[in-house]
């Protein structure tokens, strides 16, 4: 018998998954070495969406770069806006009015909801359930409608400016926003009942792509991916910025109540719980928003003093770092963005060994990688 198994030879094949593949969330490419359905390794190949955004910053100046930051991560552009804004304000020593900070937080948290809705929706679609995706997108469209009324765009917001935000909340917007939050709360529960607790869905996700806390730190994971491993690290709480200290909210972490701590289901559930927390923050922010101006006075040709700064914001995909070096002229000398998706891509190769091809799709979706954020 043992001889038979020894002589039974299987052939390893290399599959090219992407850049044009239905479930790679944009243009990602994986070179998959697989033995039948079981993967030996999936090697991520990045660079298909590189647009030299960091270099563009050196050419268009501080004000002009704001719309470009939308393109760094087009699913949650408010956070890239915010990161760039805070970085410039730090360099130029500008104080943002309190109402401006509140506007920023409200817009950003709505954007976090939209981003997480897209993430959990595509998760369902990658697993093969079409309906949750459209339900999530339906809710996201409603958020987009709100944001459109706020800043005139649905995807590339360009809402924030150095020193605050470009538009104050329009009249009657707050009532609409609160009404929407009242609508969203039961929808999240319904969504959970529809797909999150579905046995097939749970079985597809548990014990897939388990990341140990040590690995998560070594591979520099951030955001929901890191929190799913049981590590309580949220920039909003631990290195507070903007007006986040004003709000009372929890940082949901993975508990491993379905399978193992740090598996795909934990990452998914952390996002679901974070949506609830975002709703909580938004309710408080919409209630507490103070009157006043929303934009500080900033020169048109903004020339911060020479120096450098590093800013961290908690984007929907985790700790987003903006490193800006100024040489005193109207153009930044160097800009670097540190994004969560790039780190998440790095760990895929390690996690993929022994998984099935269908699991790779679930793994990518659970890590919530967004192609433009990887390459910038």
């Amino acid at each position, binding site marked *: 018998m043992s001889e038979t198994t020894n002589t039974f030879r299987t052939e390893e094949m290399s599959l090219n998954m992407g850049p044009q593949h239905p479930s790679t969330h944009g243009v990602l490419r994986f070179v998959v070495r697989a033995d039948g359905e079981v993967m030996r390794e999936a090697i991520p190949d990045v660079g298909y969406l590189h647009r030299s955004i960091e270099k563009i910053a050196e050419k268009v100046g501080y004000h002009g770069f704001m719309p470009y930051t939308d393109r760094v991560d087009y699913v949650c552009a408010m956070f890239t806006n915010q990161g760039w804004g805070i970085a410039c304000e730090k360099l130029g020593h500008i104080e943002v009015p309190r109402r401006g900070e509140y506007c920023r937080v409200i817009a950003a948290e709505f954007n976090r909801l939209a981003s997480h809705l897209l993430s959990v929706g595509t998760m369902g679609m990658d697993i093969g359930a079409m309906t949750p995706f459209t339900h999530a997108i339906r809710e996201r469209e409603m958020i987009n409608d709100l944001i459109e009324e706020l800043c005139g765009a649905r995807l590339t917001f360009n809402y924030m400016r150095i020193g605050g935000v470009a*538009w104050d909340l329009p009249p009657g917007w707050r009532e609409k926003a609160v009404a929407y939050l009242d609508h969203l709360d039961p929808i999240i529960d319904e969504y959970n009942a529809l797909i999150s607790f579905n046995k097939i869905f749970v079985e597809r996700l548990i014990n897939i792509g388990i990341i140990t806390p040590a690995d998560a730190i070594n591979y520099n994971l951030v955001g929901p991916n890191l929190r799913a491993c049981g590590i309580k690290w949220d920039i909003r709480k631990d290195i507070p910025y903007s007006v986040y200290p004003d709000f009372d909210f929890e940082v949901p972490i993975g508990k491993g109540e379905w399978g193992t701590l740090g598996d795909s289901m934990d990452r998914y559930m952390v996002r679901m719980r974070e949506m609830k927390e975002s709703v909580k923050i938004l309710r408080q922010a919409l209630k507490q928003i103070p009157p006043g*101006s929303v934009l500080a006075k900033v020169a048109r040709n903004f020339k911060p003093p020479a120096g450098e700064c590093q800013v961290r914001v908690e984007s929907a995909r985790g700790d987003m770092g903006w490193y800006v070096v100024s040489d005193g002229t109207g153009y930044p000398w160097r800009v670097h963005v540190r994004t969560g998706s790039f780190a998440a891509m790095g760990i895929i190769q390690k996690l993929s060994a022994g998984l099935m091809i269908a699991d790779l799709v679930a793994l990518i979706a659970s890590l919530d990688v967004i192609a433009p954020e990887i390459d910038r």
Partner: protein
Amino acid sequence: MSAAREYLHNIRQTVGTIFEGMAITASHFVRKPYTVQYPDRMPVRVQDTLPFRYRGILEVDLEICTGCLACERACPIDCIVIAMEKDPQTKLLTLSQFDIDIAKCMFCGLCSEPCPTGSIHHTTEFEGADYSLESLIRRFVKDPVIAYKPKKGPETDPRIAPILNRGMRYLDEFAQPGGDKPPGGDKPTEEEGAEESA
């Protein structure tokens, strides 16, 4: 024994969660679809339902353009090209070219922000598809026009006044920098907000 229990538990859970999921999907048979049947089967045009701040295709009201070039300077991708001449006799600025390349434009709104009169503004128009890139360049100046000169008092010319009013209304939407000026927008709820936070 525990294996048998797990076996039955799995079956029960599968049936239970599928039952629940089917109830939710069944409830959608009597919910209203959210689809907007763009473009032909709509009660009103989409363009008319969009908010005032919507950043669609740019438009320039040449009647109130002061020729200050603020928009050209603000544009991060140089899609606005303005040419001006100063008439030696009358000392008046004459706009001979005002082109916006819609193919390049990224609808960021940075140009309409510094405009002193609201001449360059976004419309709610978004259907810009065309067969060639050249036809996407909007040339606003047909014949050279004299640039608008802002007056001290309110505008008296009945032809220009409504355009200027609209332009200023557009500008009012933008937040005013600094705390000295009262902010536009969200006025009705402001006092209420102050009460709540107090």
